[in-house]
C-alpha cells in the first residue's frame, strides 16, 4: 500500500543534481514526509533529460514521470533548463495527444533550498497519478 | 461616424448630484468625436456598502452591467466615476477565480464571461485620445486660472487593480490641463483623502481633511481645483462655507470637473457644461480668456526673444 | 474423392470454421486499406481480392521469436557469487492452416525450407512450425501490379509449396489436394465432389498464366552478365534512388535474413531472433567498424546477387525469388528488381 492509500504506483523522477536533487535532500533533512512511490534518478541537469527517457519509462511500466530542475535563470549550467523547458513542454502536449494523460507527466523547478516545495510537489504529483490509477495492466510480481 | 466608440456607464451620481460631470463629459467627448453608448437598462454598480458585506453580491451588481456591455460586443466600458470604476475592476478581478465566477453568474440572468475591460474616462481621454488631439481642439486659453489637479483617493488605487498612472503622484490630469494651456500648480495632495467618507458620520474629521486639501491647494498657489470624482467635488465644493465659519478661513475656491475645463477650452458655452451647478462660482476666474491662436503668437514671440 | 473438391462461395466460411476446430487458421483480412493474415475466428470477414501486403511468411518464420529464455538464479543466499543460469525453450505452436495465400507465397516457403530444413543442422523452430502448417493457396486469375512469377519459374497457379490449391471457378472454389497434408485437410471437411470443375479450373489457370508479363526470359539457364553485375556504374544508375529501407526484404516471401540479440533485464533475459535486412547498413557492419558493404549500391547488388546468383549456385539453379512483385509494388522509390535483372540478363537492352 502506498501512503496515498492505494497500491503503490511506479513514479520515476529525473532530478538535476544541483537544485532539485538537493531540494529533495533538503526535504529529507527537514524530515518532510512524502509518499513513497517515487524513484529518483539523478542527472546533472534537467537539460540532460531527453524527452525519450520519459517516453521509455511510461512505455515500459511507469505510471507517472516527474522531471525537476533548477528554476529558470538559476541553472548551474546557465541554459540547460531552458532547453528542458521547451522539450518537456513539447513532450507533455505530445503525450496527451497520443493518449497518455498529460497528468502522468509533470515538470517543475525546485531549488536546493525548497525542501518544502519538493514535499508539496511529490505529494501532489503522487496524488494526481493515483487519481488516474495504473497506466498499464501489470503482471503481479512473482514473489 | 465617430472615430472612437465606447460603452459608457455614467453612474448614479452623474444622474443626480453631479449631473454637470456627465453633461460636460458628453460635451467634451462629442467635441473629440468619441461616441458613448449607454448600455440599455444599466443598474447600480455595486459600490454601495454592498462590497463590505458580501463580495459575491457586490460583484454580481457590477457584473450585471458588464454583462450588458459584453452583449453589445464592446471590449471597453468607460465611466467617469472612480467609485464605479473600482467596483467594475474589482468584479473583473475577483471573477478571474472560476468558482467565484460561478457563484456570481448563478445570481445573474445573463452570465458574464469577464471580457469587458473597465477604464475611467480620464484614462480614455489621456491614453486613447491623447494630448496632441486635445491640444488641437483647444480654442480658448483661460489665463486667470491656476489649477490644482486633484485626483482623489481611488482613481489610481490599488495600483495592481487600477493599472493606470502613478498611485502616489498621478500626472494624467496635470498633462491634460497643461495641454489645455492652463497654469497647473505643483500640488502635493493630489491623492490625499478629501474626507467625504466621513461626510455624515464624523463631520469634524471630514472638515479637518477637507480643510487640509483646500489649504494645500491655496499654498500651492492655486485659485481653483480640478477634480475627476463626483464625491470629491461635492465634498470640497459644498463645505467651504462651513469650514470658513469654523476656522475663520476665507476659502472661495471653485472646484471644477476637469471635463468642464476641457469643454471651456474647446469653446463650449458654460451652459453646455452646466457650470452653474457648481456651488463656488467660478465666473470671475473664467472672465479672462484668450483665443489660443493669440497665445501661440505670444509664445512664438517669447521663443524668438529667448533664441536671440 | 479426397484429391479434389468443390465449395460454393457461400460455404467458404463453414469450411474455415470447420478447419479452425482442429487448427489455428490464418486467412487474409482487410485491416484499414491493407490486407493482412489474421487469425480466423467465427464470423470474421475474409478478403481474397488481392494478395496480402505482407504474406504468410511471418506465421512460419516470425519477425521476432524467442529462441530461448534464461534466468539467473542465486540459490544459495550465503554465496552471492554462485549463479545458476536456467535456460528454457518453449514451444507451443499449434497445428495451423494458412488459407488463401497466393502460389508465390507458398513457393517462398520452399526457398526457406532449403535453408532451414534441408541441411545437416535443421532449424528446429522453423521445422516445427513448417511441419505443423498446412498451406491452402489461392490461384491468381490475373496478375497484380509488379507481378512477374512466370519469369522466375513460378506461375499464377504454381503448386510448389502448397498443400492445397484453390481456384475460383465462378460460382465457387475448386480445391486440389497436392500433398498428404492437403488430402487430410480436404478429408476433414465435407465438400462436394470437384471432378466436374477440374477442366474449368485448368482453363482459368492457363489463361491467367498468359497474362503475366515477362520482364526477362523465363529460361533460368540464361546467365546474368557478370561484367555488368560487377560494374559500380550500372548499380549507381539503377539504384541511386533506393532509400535503403527494408520494405522490400521484409515483404519478400523469400528473404530470410535474421539477427540474433540477447535482451536482458535485472535477472532474466531472452535470446531473440528477428528479421534483418541486407539493405540496412548494420547488416554487415563488423565490430571493428569496418563494413564490407558500406553503400546502398553494394547492398542492393548483394540482394540481387543473392536471389539470382548465389542461391541458385548453391541450390541447384533455384532462383530465390518468387516474382510476387511486392518489392516493386511497395518500394518507396519504385525500384524495379525485374527491370534490373532484365538488364543483367540482356545487357544490350540497356
Amino acid at each position, binding site marked *: 500500500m502506498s501512503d496515498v492509500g492505494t497500491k503503490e504506483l511506479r513514479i520515476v523522477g529525473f532530478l538535476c543534481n544541483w537544485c532539485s536533487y538537493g531540494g529533495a535532500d533538503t526535504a529529507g533533512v527537514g524530515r518532510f514526509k512524502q509518499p513513497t512511490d517515487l524513484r529518483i534518478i539523478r542527472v546533472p541537469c534537467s537539460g540532460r533529460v531527453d524527452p525519450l527517457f520519459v517516453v521509455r519509462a511510461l512505455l515500459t511500466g511507469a505510471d507517472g514521470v516527474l522531471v525537476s530542475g533548477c528554476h529558470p535563470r538559476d541553472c548551474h549550467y546557465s541554459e540547460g533548463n531552458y532547453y528542458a523547458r521547451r522539450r518537456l513542454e*513539447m513532450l507533455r502536449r505530445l503525450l496527451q495527444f497520443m493518449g497518455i494523460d498529460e497528468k502522468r507527466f509533470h515538470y517543475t523547478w525546485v531549488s536546493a533550498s525548497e525542501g518544502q516545495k519538493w514535499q508539496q510537489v511529490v505529494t501532489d504529483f503522487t496524488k494526481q497519478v493515483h487519481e488516474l490509477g495504473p497506466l498499464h495492466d501489470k503482471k503481479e510480481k512473482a514473489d | 461616424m465617430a472615430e472612437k466608440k465606447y460603452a459608457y456607464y455614467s453612474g448614479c451620481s452623474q444622474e443626480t448630484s453631479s449631473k454637470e460631470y456627465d453633461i460636460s463629459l458628453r460635451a467634451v467627448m462629442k467635441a473629440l468625436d468619441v461616441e458613448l453608448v449607454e448600455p440599455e437598462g444599466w443598474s447600480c454598480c455595486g459600490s454601495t456598502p454592498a462590497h463590505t458585506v458580501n463580495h459575491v453580491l457586490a460583484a454580481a451588481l457590477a457584473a450585471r452591467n458588464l454583462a450588458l456591455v459584453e452583449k453589445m460586443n464592446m471590449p471597453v466600458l468607460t465611466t467617469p466615476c472612480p467609485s464605479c470604476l473600482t467596483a467594475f475592476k474589482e468584479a473583473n478581478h475577483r471573477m478571474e477565480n472560476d468558482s467565484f465566477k460561478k457563484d456570481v453568474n448563478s445570481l445573474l440572468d445573463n452570465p458574464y464571461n469577464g471580457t469587458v475591460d473597465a477604464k475611467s474616462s480620464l484614462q480614455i481621454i489621456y491614453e486613447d485620445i491623447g494630448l496632441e488631439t486635445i491640444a488641437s481642439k483647444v480654442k480658448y486659453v483661460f489665463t486667470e486660472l491656476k489649477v490644482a489637479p486633484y485626483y482623489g483617493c481611488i482613481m489610481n488605487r490599488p495600483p495592481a487593480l487600477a493599472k493606470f498612472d502613478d498611485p502616489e503622484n498621478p500626472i494624467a490630469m496635470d498633462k491634460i490641463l497643461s495641454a489645455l494651456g492652463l497654469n497647473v500648480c505643483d500640488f502635493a495632495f493630489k491623492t490625499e483623502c478629501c474626507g467625504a467618507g466621513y461626510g455624515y458620520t464624523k463631520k469634524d474629521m471630514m472638515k479637518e481633511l477637507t480643510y487640509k486639501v483646500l489649504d494645500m491647494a491655496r499654498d500651492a498657489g492655486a485659485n481653483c481645483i480640478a477634480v475627476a470624482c463626483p464625491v470629491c467635488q461635492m465634498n470640497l465644493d459644498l463645505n467651504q462655507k462651513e469650514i470658513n465659519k469654523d476656522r475663520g478661513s476665507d476659502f472661495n475656491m471653485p472646484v471644477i470637473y476637469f471635463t468642464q475645463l476641457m469643454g471651456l477650452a474647446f469653446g463650449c458655452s458654460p451652459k453646455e457644461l452646466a457650470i452653474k451647478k457648481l456651488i463656488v462660482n467660478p465666473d470671475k476666474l473664467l472672465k479672462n480668456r484668450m483665443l489660443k491662436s493669440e497665445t501661440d503668437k505670444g509664445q512664438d514671440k517669447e521663443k524668438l526673444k529667448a533664441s536671440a | 474423392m479426397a484429391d479434389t473438391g468443390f465449395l460454393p462461395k457461400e460455404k467458404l466460411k463453414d469450411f474455415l470454421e470447420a478447419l479452425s476446430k482442429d487448427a489455428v487458421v490464418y486467412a487474409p483480412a482487410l485491416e484499414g486499406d491493407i490486407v493482412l493474415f489474421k487469425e480466423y475466428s467465427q464470423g470474421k470477414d475474409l478478403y481474397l481480392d488481392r494478395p496480402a501486403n505482407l504474406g504468410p511468411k511471418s506465421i512460419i518464420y516470425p519477425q521476432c521469436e524467442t529462441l530461448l529464455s534464461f534466468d539467473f538464479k542465486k540459490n544459495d543466499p550465503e554465496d552471492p557469487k554462485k549463479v545458476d543460469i536456467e535456460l528454457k525453450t518453449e514451444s507451443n505452436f499449434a497445428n495451423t492452416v494458412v488459407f488463401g495465400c497466393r502460389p508465390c507465397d507458398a513457393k517462398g516457403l520452399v526457398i526457406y525450407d532449403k535453408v532451414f530444413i534441408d541441411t545437416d543442422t535443421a532449424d528446429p523452430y522453423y521445422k516445427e512450425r513448417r511441419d505443423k502448417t498446412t498451406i491452402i493457396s489461392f490461384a491468381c486469375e490475373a496478375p497484380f501490379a509488379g507481378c512477374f512469377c512466370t519469369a522466375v519459374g513460378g506461375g499464377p497457379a504454381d503448386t510448389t509449396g502448397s498443400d492445397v490449391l484453390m481456384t475460383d471457378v465462378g460460382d465457387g472454389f475448386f480445391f486440389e489436394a497436392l500433398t498428404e497434408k492437403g488430402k487430410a485437410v480436404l478429408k476433414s471437411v465435407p465438400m462436394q465432389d470437384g471432378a466436374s470443375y477440374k477442366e474449368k479450373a485448368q482453363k482459368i489457370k492457363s489463361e491467367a498464366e498468359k497474362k503475366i508479363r515477362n520482364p526477362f526470359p523465363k529460361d533460368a539457364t540464361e546467365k546474368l552478365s557478370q561484367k555488368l553485375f560487377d560494374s559500380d556504374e550500372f548499380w549507381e544508375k539503377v539504384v541511386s534512388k533506393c532509400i535503403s529501407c527494408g520494405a522490400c526484404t521484409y515483404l519478400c516471401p523469400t528473404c530470410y535474413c535474421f539477427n540474433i540479440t540477447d535482451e536482458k533485464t535485472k535477472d532474466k533475459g531472452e535470446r531473440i531472433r528477428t528479421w534483418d535486412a541486407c539493405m540496412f547498413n548494420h547488416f554487415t557492419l563488423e565490430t571493428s567498424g569496418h563494413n564490407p558493404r558500406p553503400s546502398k549500391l553494394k547492398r542492393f547488388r548483394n540482394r540481387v546477387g543473392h536471389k539470382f546468383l548465389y542461391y541458385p549456385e548453391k541450390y541447384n539453379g533455384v532462383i530465390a525469388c518468387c516474382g510476387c512483385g511486392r518489392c516493386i509494388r511497395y518500394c518507396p522509390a519504385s525500384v524495379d528488381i525485374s527491370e534490373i535483372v532484365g538488364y543483367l540478363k540482356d545487357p544490350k537492352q540497356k
Partner: protein
Amino acid sequence: MSTEKLKEIILKVLPDVDTVIGWQEGFDKIHITPFFMKSPEDAEKAVWNSLCVQNLAAYLPSLKKKTAVIVKGCDSRTIVQYMQEGLIDRSNVVIIGIPCTGVVSVKKVLKAVDYQPIEDVKFSDEKIIIKTSKGEKTLAIADVCPDKCKTCQYPTPIVYDHLAGDPIESTKPAESVYEDIKEFEKKSLEERRDYFKNEFDKCIRCYACRNACPMCVCQDSCIAETRDPHWITQKLSSEEKMMFHMIHAVHLAGRCVECGECERVCPMDIPVAKLKKKINSEMKELFDYVPGVNPEDKPPMYTFNVEEAKIKEHKL
C-alpha cells in the same frame, strides 16, 4: 506547366552539375520513379505530372557532388530546413522549382480502382483518367490528392534557382493546416491511445518511413538499431513499436517539413506523420515557428528564450 519547359531547364543546368534529380516513368503507368539524370539523353526521359510524388530533396545530404534537384513547393521546405540546420551547402545545389497545384496519392487512386493493375493513365484538366482491365475511371485530382495538398500553403517553391512555370498563390486558408489534428483531438484519451496502438502494431519496422524522411539525418546511425545507446530492443511488442515512432517524432520536433513521405512510403499504411504534425501545430502555437519556411529561422528545440511567452509553469 509543360514537361518541355522543365526539360529546357534541365538541359541548361546539366553541364554545371553532376546529376539532375527528377522523375521518369516507373514500372507501371501510375508509378513515377526518381530519376538521376546525367546526360541530355536522360533529360529526354524526364517527366512532370501529378504522379511525381517523391520528395527528391531528401537525396541531397547524401550526395557530395554538385547536384540539381527538381522540387515542388512542399519539397522546397526540405531544402529550407536543410539550410537552417546547415545540412547542405547551398552553393552545391541547384534548385529547379515547379509550381504545383497538387499531386496524386497513388494509394488513393489504387483504392478507387479496386487495386486493379493499371493499364494507362491520362490527365485532363484537374482530373486523372485511369484505365484498367475493367474500364476507364475518371477521378478529380482534388479527390485523390494526399492530405498535405488539401491544405498546401506553399504551391510555389520557397527557394529556387530556376522556376519552371509561373508562381502560384495558395488558395487554402492557413488555419486549415492543423484542422485534422484538432479534429483528431476531439477523440477521447482512450480512443487516441487505442488508435495509435492499433496503427503502430501494424509496423514491421522496415524503416521506410525513417529512410524516406528528409530530416532523419542519422540514417545509418539511428538509435532504433544501436546497442549503445540501447534505447529500444528488436522485440516486436507494441511498446517497442510505439517507442520507435516516438523516437522519430521527438527527433523531428520543430523540424518536420510535412512532406508526408513517411506516410506515403509506409507499406503498412500507418499514419506515421500524425505525431509529427501534432508537434508542428504546437511549435506554431508555442514559438510561432513553421519548419522549412525561412532559412534564417532557428529550429525551436535548439534555442530558447529566457522568458517563454507561451510556456506557463504548470500547477499540480
